[in-house]
């Protein structure tokens, strides 16, 4: 990909869409994802009940239970809260976590990786060794320890996951910059007087976007999984937040008595992550010319 970014040339976008739409799984993932985003944004419209309201007459009731207030489609939890409503509001948290983690780690990673690849020398060596250190720890363990230090909670969990996700962007950006920096168009821009910042972020960056976009999709789903895992271990969002991982943690003790409190939150995580991964696969096939049509 030696052309400039997709937004400048509509032909590129069209070509991208043609490849993307050939992949039925990817389109299905996209539709599902858009639906999730709509549900999350308009959660109060979709949710039949208030996610925190406790109906004391219907504690731990199976799906399709009819209470005095209406039907509980997916049943109720141990405090008599409607599971469907909690899941709908929980979508907000998962998507929010994904967006924040990907934005923070993408922006940070691109800037750091750009400096490493562009300046080389000791800047590069230092940055890459620091990234090696982060990568030497299993991501969940590092995130878990970071959260233990910063204190349990959603914000700290997001910070920890973003730090752990960062090195992948740094490596990808650096590798892309290394192949691009000696191309003719970069030299041309340099001799016509472009400064290093212009060269880095205006000339080179748009041509490194393809692998970064694919990685963004991958780490979006990874962030949702990690945040749910932290919530499950009691180190993420804290009860009564209807975050899906936290809901699972609360449901654990009812595992033998009430399958629905365990099944649905996990299913919500799985479907969301699956939709994003399907999209990610489609993005990779459409953006990466090497893998195209293989």
């Amino acid at each position: 990909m030696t052309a400039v970014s997709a937004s400048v040339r509509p032909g590129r976008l069209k070509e991208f869409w043609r490849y993307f739409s050939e992949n039925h799984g990817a389109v299905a993932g996209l539709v599902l994802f858009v639906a999730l985003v709509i549900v999350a944004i308009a959660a109060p419209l979709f949710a039949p009940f208030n996610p925190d309201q406790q109906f004391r007459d219907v504690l731990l009731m199976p799906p399709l239970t009819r209470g005095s207030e209406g039907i509980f489609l997916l049943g109720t939890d141990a405090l008599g809260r409607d599971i469907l409503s909690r899941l709908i509001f929980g979508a907000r948290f998962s998507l929010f976590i994904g967006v924040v983690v990907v934005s923070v780690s993408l922006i940070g990673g691109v800037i750091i990786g750009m400096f490493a690849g562009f300046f080389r020398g000791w800047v590069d060596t230092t940055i890459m060794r620091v990234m090696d250190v982060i990568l030497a720890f299993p991501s969940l363990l590092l995130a878990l320890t970071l959260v233990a230090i910063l204190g349990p909670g959603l914000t700290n969990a997001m910070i920890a996951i973003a730090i752990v996700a960062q090195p992948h962007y740094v490596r990808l950006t650096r590798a892309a910059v290394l192949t691009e920096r000696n191309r003719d168009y970069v030299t041309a821009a340099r001799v016509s007087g472009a400064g290093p910042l212009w060269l880095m972020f205006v000339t080179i960056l748009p041509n490194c976007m393809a692998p970064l976009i694919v990685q963004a999709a991958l780490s979006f789903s990874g962030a949702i999984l990690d945040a749910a895992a932290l919530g499950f271990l009691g180190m993420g969002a804290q009860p009564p937040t209807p975050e899906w991982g936290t809901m699972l943690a609360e449901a654990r003790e009812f595992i033998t008595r009430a399958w629905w409190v365990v099944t649905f939150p996990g299913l919500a995580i799985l479907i969301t992550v699956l939709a994003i991964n399907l999209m990610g696969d489609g993005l990779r096939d459409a953006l990466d010319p090497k893998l195209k049509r293989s």
Partner: protein
Amino acid sequence: MFGFILRRLSLLIPTFIGVSLVAFFFIRALPGDPVLLLAGERGISPERYAELMHRYGFDLPLWQQFIVYFTDLLHGDFGTSISTKKPIFTEFFTLFPATLELSFCAVIFAVVLGVPAGVIAAVKRNSWFDHTAMATALVGYSMPIFWWALLLIIVFSGMLGWTPVSGRISLMFFFPKVTGFMLIDSLLSGKAGAFQSAMSHLILPTIVLGTIPLAVIARQTRSAMLEVLGEDYIRTAKAKGLSPFRVVAVHALRNALIPVITTIGLQIGVLMAGAILTETIFSWPGVGKWMVDSIFRRDYPAVQGGLVLIALIVMGVNLIVDMLYGLVNPKIRHQR
């Protein structure tokens, strides 16, 4: 090759220093006084406080404290656990065989199912098997494994009653630890039913921990096979009149396995992260559960030592994978 190994080893030194720096400052960044933490709730006299501050070296400047800590690490002293008062190194390696056994079984599970599935999917490309296998792999790859574990427990332990819910072996069996690997020790004990008990405890955690590696390996094998199957030497092998099985199993698979082996090696970090969740859910007495427990017990020396030891293991495995890769691929070896 020797130069390649040296180069890789020299990269590990700054990483190791970095890892110990991170572990050191993580713990120092914690709110609270380390000596008061050691003293517990009973409190401590000012003289005793000063003495302990001096004994643990907390009165030294921070950089000197780090040097003391780092020198200790080099001598194999990873500190002492607050809750058990045992050296962390001993504690870690008493539990490590459990994690190793589980991870090893998970990798075997993933390879035994994943490689053939990937090969068949590639050979029968676009068949129903290919589509089903790849769809399943994508689901497996997207699986929140802590939920997967709970589902399996509901079905196989709860409804069917086939497998136990937690631990490594039934409490009925007691025999001395020889290797630390329950499957081997239970066989060595010669007690009837011990091996079966160990197996039934191992099976669900193995499936849970092996699911994501299985999905990754199946996908990776398929795409590596597809690439190799298009090569000239495969056409040559076919043209020579070799049986299709021989072409696939010998000529193609051998070359496709190189990227697959790398993938397996790179799964070690994923496995360690997965072990944390799997061991916690199944009460599997390995290092993953121990780390989580230490974090919750606020046993900071244990967390610190555990972080360094786990990072060392990950670095070691990555080095071995790199060396194997360099061994089979000269291009990598000569890269700078």
